[in-house]
């Protein structure tokens, strides 16, 4: 379990960092923002799930990921709206909106995927 967790940290960190560097390099910022929603965690997690648990397990994870992705659209749209209207720091807004992502993802999962 510990060994798998270490693999996850290393592989997940590498994927997320690679997409983050791409995001840094690109302009304009609305385009670079695409890479903030890159499938970095998904590629690392699905790859590891495929090796450890097989295709069926990874496919179930991908099915639930659809709810997380729609919740991400809601989360990012809400942050955009707040950032362009109010004088609040980005970190504060992004962290305060995480419960919104969680609520939207869980709500969609219970409503359509359970």
């Amino acid at each position, binding site marked *: 379990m510990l060994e798998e967790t270490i693999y996850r940290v290393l592989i997940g960190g590498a994927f*997320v*960092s690679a997409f983050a560097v791409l995001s840094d390099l690109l302009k304009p910022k609305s385009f670079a923002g695409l890479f903030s929603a*890159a499938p970095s965690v998904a590629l690392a997690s699905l790859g590891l799930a495929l090796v450890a648990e097989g295709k069926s397990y990874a496919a179930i994870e991908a099915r639930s990921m659809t709810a997380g*992705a729609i919740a*991400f659209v809601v989360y990012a749209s809400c942050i955009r709206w707040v950032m362009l209207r109010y004088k609040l720091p980005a970190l504060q807004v992004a962290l305060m909106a995480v419960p919104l992502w969680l609520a939207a993802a869980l709500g969609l999962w219970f409503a359509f995927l*359970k």
Partner: protein
Amino acid sequence: MKIRLNFSALRLTTKREYAIRFIVGGTVTALAGVVSKKFGPGIGGMFLAFPAIFPASATLIEKHEKERKQREGLKGGRSGRTAAGYDASGAAMGSAGLFVFAVLVWRLLPAYTAWAVLIGATFVWLAVSLAIWRILAKNGKNSAS
């Protein structure tokens, strides 16, 4: 609107900031695995689309834009917030692509070679996100920053 590569932006990011992104990304991937093991892949799978890097990226963009304006003798607070807002706008478009990525992996993985599905779905994620961005850019819904 033209897409440009700005290599000088890499110098603005400190080693500490790179380390934070690596640790946050790794931690979220590990947490997604722990949730899947404890509650099953149905619940854990949602965290594959967790906004892992967005808070750190938006903060960096806000900070770098503010610093750039301050070097020009301006306050830069508003411009930093606007840049972070447009980054969020891009993230919303990327998330729509992420939804398509998840649907493709979910439907195709049981029948096709795993690595080909993952690579193909990643290219489709990019294509869908880029198409949405281009359509909105043409209609003036995006701003350069």
